[in-house]
């Protein structure tokens, strides 16, 4: 049994992004950590409310933080890990917001009558921060069994790991945490100039043509830089960059498809975890199987 750390999976990981959940939990297990799902967690709401005069979008997040506060005391650890960029951003922003604006916290504590008050000591972390700061990249390096030698990876951060500043896990204009990880996994990192540019996000629901155009640009540039795959941490970036290639191809006949993967899948593969129970390639629109064949 590894050391227990609280894990907030989020609703998307429980279905369409099973490939992200299992590769995260299983890669952590190899590193000696047991990611325990936060009991009773609820959906975080994905986007943080920006209206200053409302706490509507903060309720679910603070409720989750209170659940973490209770469970954290049981297991003796105050870290709450998320791997979905949106879940991370949302939980972290809520924590910072109510710590800065105590009147908001007071309103929420009064509103959530049955629950304990939020004491403010939950450390919301993204899995990448956990790897770098708590596990240590040298420990990750130790566990690499099948170096991804020759695989050219374009790291894609998107928006919510880097913006706004208060939640940035790395330099927002020139992040390197994914690059560092992929180099340790033995892969060749592509210097990807669009790594922190937005994919179009939730417009994929009602304006998918726009997202198709964003995907066309993001994937074509990665291809032009010589990448074999784009690696991300967000199930929405993943869906947009993967599935919306269909639209990109319809609009631009010269467009060439490229598989999209989660950074955790690459880590799992390098650790020798190649079972489809962990990787779930059936969740991909463009299968990465051919590109990754050498290491599977």
């Amino acid at each position, binding site marked *: 049994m590894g050391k227990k750390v609280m894990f907030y999976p989020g609703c998307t990981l429980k279905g369409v992004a099973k490939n992200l959940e299992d590769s995260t939990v299983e890669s952590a297990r190899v590193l000696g950590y047991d990611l325990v799902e936060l009991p009773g967690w609820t959906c975080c709401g994905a*986007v943080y409310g*920006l*209206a*200053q005069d409302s706490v509507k979008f903060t309720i679910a997040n603070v409720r989750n933080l209170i659940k973490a506060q209770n469970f954290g005391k049981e297991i003796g650890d105050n870290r709450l890990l998320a791997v979905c960029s949106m879940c991370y951003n949302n939980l972290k922003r809520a924590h910072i917001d109510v710590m800065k604006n105590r009147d908001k916290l007071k309103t929420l504590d009064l509103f959530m009558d049955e629950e304990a008050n939020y004491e403010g000591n939950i450390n919301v972390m993204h899995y990448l921060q956990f790897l770098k700061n708590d596990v240590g990249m040298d420990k990750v390096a130790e566990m690499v069994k099948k170096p991804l030698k020759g695989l050219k990876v374009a790291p894609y951060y998107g928006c919510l790991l880097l*913006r706004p500043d208060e939640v940035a896990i790395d330099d927002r204009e020139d992040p390197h945490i994914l690059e560092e990880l992929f180099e340790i996994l033995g892969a060749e990192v592509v210097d990807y100039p669009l790594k922190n540019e937005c994919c*179009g996000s939730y*417009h994929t629901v009602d304006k998918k043509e726009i997202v198709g155009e964003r995907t066309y640009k993001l994937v074509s540039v990665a291809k032009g830089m010589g990448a074999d795959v784009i690696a991300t941490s967000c199930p929405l970036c993943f*869906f947009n960059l993967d599935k919306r290639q269909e639209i990109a191809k319809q609009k631009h006949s010269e467009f060439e498809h490229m598989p999209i993967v989660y950074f955790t899948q690459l880590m799992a593969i390098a650790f020798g975890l190649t079972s489809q129970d962990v990787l779930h390639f059936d969740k991909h629109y463009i299968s990465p199987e051919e590109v990754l064949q050498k290491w599977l």
Partner: protein
Amino acid sequence: MKYTITKDPHEDERVQKIIEISGQNIFSCYQCGRCSSGCPMAEFMDVLPNQVFMFLQEGDVDTLLNAKTPWICAACFTCTVRCPVGLDLAAVMEAIRELQLRKNYDYVDPYKVEDREELPPIAMVSNFRKFTP
């Protein structure tokens, strides 16, 4: 483009409401254009991000309520982190949407969304949060 400022924008109720909801002093924008130059959605917009502040400073809220721009912004926060005076334009875009959403306006009708089966929850949850009351 030619327009006449007929009323002090500081006294315009809807400008004040946008300031209140967003928490941003829209009068501090000095039109450097940095928000627009880095905006990944600018090519799809009818009013550029810096122009949003221009119209607000002139008290022309109608143009913004009729524009596509607030509904094209993806809340990616690129402008927010780069603005030299620290304005959170993403929050201002949200305030303009809120002016309409708070009147029980549905920009997206969840029942009319195509390919609902294949969309991940994260896409629908975020979209409906931004585009429905």
